[in-house]
């Protein structure tokens, strides 16, 4: 699922949170909060010199052997990835890169980001949604968490309804710990329902990034001849000459995109538009580079 080439291209980039998050990362993160808690990760055999307080006495009681507990380091960055798995995301245009549907593109992007975050020992939580969150994996920093995320993404159920607003509200309640929340969706929903969900997330103190994944066909409407359009998600059939309505359709879509962008800006949410015509790595690279540049500018300021 993960293109190693894609991974190789983004692996060098750091994902740095723009907003102030809880906790710290050794050498890379700083946390304003004191204290920390750890999570047990795994056992290893006792080696003389290890700190005795990390000996797992329960295991000694059972096995009369000495094992040291290894813990996951608690990080400041929790990256929550939410991918829209509604039916509308399954559209594949003729110009889609690698013939990826919007969903596949979003899945690939989410997986790549999971790898990147885990690689830098940050935590990733992931979920899928349609008319609500229909799949979820809790955050983890473990490398093997990548597979769990991938499995989640691949097994996302197809649902004809989209309810982004509900999903965002659900998410806001699930994710307590502040971090980055990235939502991958085509956002083909009423902006009025989208806005409160986004606002809820921001209210939780999260840095929210909305990646609107659109197919190139949706952005250019390139159809010729007589075409009967059947709704993938929304009901309806329309027989028309696409050329004759092209401009009007694109104007209508553009109005929606502008409204979405405005809603995001209003709530301090970062908005990224992704065209599936572009390879995932190109989009992510550009995005991450921009974040690094902005973080550097902000640090210097």
């Amino acid at each position, binding site marked *: 699922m993960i293109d190693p080439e894609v991974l190789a291209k983004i692996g060098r980039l750091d994902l740095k949170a723009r907003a102030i998050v809880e906790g710290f990362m050794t050498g890379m993160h700083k946390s304003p909060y004191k204290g920390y808690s750890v999570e047990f990760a795994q056992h290893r055999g006792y080696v003389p010199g290890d700190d005795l307080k990390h000996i797992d006495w329960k295991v000694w009681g059972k096995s009369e052997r000495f094992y040291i507990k290894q813990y996951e380091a608690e990080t400041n960055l929790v990256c929550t990835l939410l991918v829209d798995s509604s*039916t*509308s*995301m*399954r*559209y594949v245009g003729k110009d889609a890169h690698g013939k990826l549907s*919007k969903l596949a593109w979003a899945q690939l992007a989410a997986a790549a980001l999971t790898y990147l975050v885990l690689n830098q020992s940050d935590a990733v939580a992931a979920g899928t949604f349609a008319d609500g969150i229909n799949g979820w994996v809790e955050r983890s920093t473990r490398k093997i968490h990548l597979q769990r995320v991938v499995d989640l993404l691949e097994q996302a159920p197809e649902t004809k309804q989209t309810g982004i607003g509900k999903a965002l509200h659900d998410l806001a309640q699930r994710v307590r710990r502040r971090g980055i929340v990235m939502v991958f969706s*085509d956002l*083909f929903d009423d902006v009025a329902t989208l806005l409160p969900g986004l606002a809820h997330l921001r209210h939780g103190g999260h840095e929210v990034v909305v990646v609107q994944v659109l*197919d190139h066909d*949706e952005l*250019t*409407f*390139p*159809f010729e*001849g*007589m*075409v*009967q*359009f*059947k*709704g*993938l*998600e*929304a*009901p*309806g059939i*329309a*027989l*028309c*000459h696409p*050329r*004759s*309505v*092209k*401009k*009007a*359709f*694109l*104007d*209508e*879509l553009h109005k*929606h995109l502008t409204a979405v962008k405005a809603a995001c800006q209003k709530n301090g949410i970062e908005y990224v538009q992704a065209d599936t015509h572009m390879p995932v790595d190109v989009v992510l690279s550009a995005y991450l580079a921009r974040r690094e540049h902005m973080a550097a500018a902000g640090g210097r300021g």
Partner: protein
Amino acid sequence: MNLLAPLLVGFTVLGAVPIIIHLLNRSRFRVVEWAAMEFLLRTLQKNSRRVQLRDVILMLLRTAAVVLVALALARPTYAPGRFAIGGSGSVSAVVVLDNSLSMGCRDAVDTRFDLARKAARSAIEGLPKGSAATVVLMSDVAVSEVAEPTQDLAYLLTALDQAPLSDGGTAIATGLQAAWSILGKVSASAREIYLVTDLQARGWPAADDVAWAELVRTIAAAKDVRLFIADVGRGDAAGNVAVEKVEFSDDLVGTDGEATVLATLRNHGETPAIGVSVDLLVDDGKGGELRPSATALVDELSGTAQVRLACRFDRGGRHRIEVRTGPDRLPADNTRRVVVDVVDKIKVLIVDGAAEGGVPGGATFLRAALSPGISMPAAGVDASAADQIEATVVAPGQLAGLTLDDFQAVVLSDVAQPSAAVADALASFVAGGRGLLIFLGGNVQPAAYNRILGERGLLPGTLGSAPRALLDDKGVAGIGFATADLTHPIVAFFADKAAQPWLAQPRFRQAWPLAVAVPANGAKADTAVVARFADGQPAVTSRAVGRGEVVAFAAPADKEWSDLPLRPAFLMLTRRAIQHIALGSRPRLTLAVNETIVQGVPARDAGETFIARDPRGGESRLVPVAGRDGTAVVQLSATAFAGFYEIARDNVTFRFATNPPAEESDLALLAREAVAERLPGLVPAWIGADENVAVRIEHGRTGRELWPLLFAIAVACLVAESILALVWAPKGT
């Protein structure tokens, strides 16, 4: 409306192809499962009507283009009021061929008449099968060789080839009237008039001419009458110099001296003509050829110029003269001809009333005034040869024994009372074209004059019962002539202010009152007041009697009542009066073409045959008709050609001249727009000089072909469709 290729109209069904394609396209589509369906549905909801309208417009444009091209293939034509399939049927046609003088103009290689004949021939040859036609030759008269349209077109073409160019003016109304007179009686379904002319402006009636307007209205109201005008005129009036007028400076031309010919030239062009030569030619009076007599050169001619040319005549009789100028593109108006009666001697018989108790001297004064050479012969001079007027004095009693025909005029000088027989002789004498001059003095018996002469029409007015005294404003005896209103030829000389003092000199103490009858209701008067006294009463009166004239002086020619005989005016008045009446009502020897020549002949010649010869060598036979007054008249009306005519019998030859109307030399053409204004309701089809007449007539007959228009509209539809499709296509894709 007509379809020249009706079978091809079936291709218009191809107009259904765009519709069929549209329907097929709608049935052939691909299916796309679309994620952004809401946006698409919203778009369609907002724009469906506009989109459908655009689709309909584009489809209509495509369909229209196909239909129009198919219709153009069928070659539709449009002629108001006509509908036919596959061409035109037979027609009845009149070709009005302008053969006026201006058609002899050579604008290029051919004359306008050559072009006109070709056009007429083409029109006749292009007639549909079964058609009938005739030709009307139009100048200022209309002549038709064939009275009704004939289907024998070969004969018509022969007549056309032989049609001559006339020297007449142009009268479009005459030609059109003649054409309508023929066509109006024809009950054909299609009637056509082909007017072949140079559009000379002067030939067209004004738009407000009532008779013309009525003619046009009548023709326009008639069904199925088409007018075609073949315009063969070109150029302008530039380069046309014409001899406009030729006349003698004196009314009476005699052998007694040099005669002066006044020739008026006119340059009808804008550019001055340089070095215009003018030649005068005269004949010998015996029918011999004309010989050059004088020549002049006009250095620069702009507008008009009068040239004086001198000549002498050795003998009396009718002489032919010609004035010629140099060649130009219209030669026919470069020569003008005149026939003049040159007077050798005027024989005058003076009846001296003094022989019967009148005051002596009147006849003597008269003879001295009329024949000064005889009265006062100079040593070594042949007196009879010197005087143009040969006066003979007789007593009244000698009149009965004389043959009045030997004289041109008789003068009654204070004769008391002419006898009835004398009066009868005088009446016949005057009616035959001679003159009677009466001087009324103290010897005159007024009642006898009123009865004897007056009843025979030999008095210009009624004589009063007694002479009256002429007193001026202060009551002093003696008044003169009035010097106003001197229009009569006898006194016209005194209209010149330099000559008026002579007329004002004589003083009259007494005169006979003459009541001159004024005709009622504006009828033409045969009496006239030649001159008045200063108190307004008639002094000299005249009366036309038959072909002659009577002139009466209200005072005698002696010194008893006035000092007139002692004044220079007496010489002028008496000589001019004699010259005026001596030759009587002379026949007009110089006429316009197409005018009738009238020549009086002795009554004994009535019923005899005279031979008439025209300038082109044609001959015809004429028979004189007896008149009322014991005379006979021979008439020749076939005078379409300019030149000299002769009417002859035995050893007697009468000569005449005809000339074209001077206005015909104005070659200015009328613009087609101006012609159209003169044809309200009658829209002509125009044929230019360079166009194929038969083809243009066929177009005019079937109507204007519409295929170029339809094709242009079809192209416009396709262009509009392309542009609209481009404009309505989405941008930035």
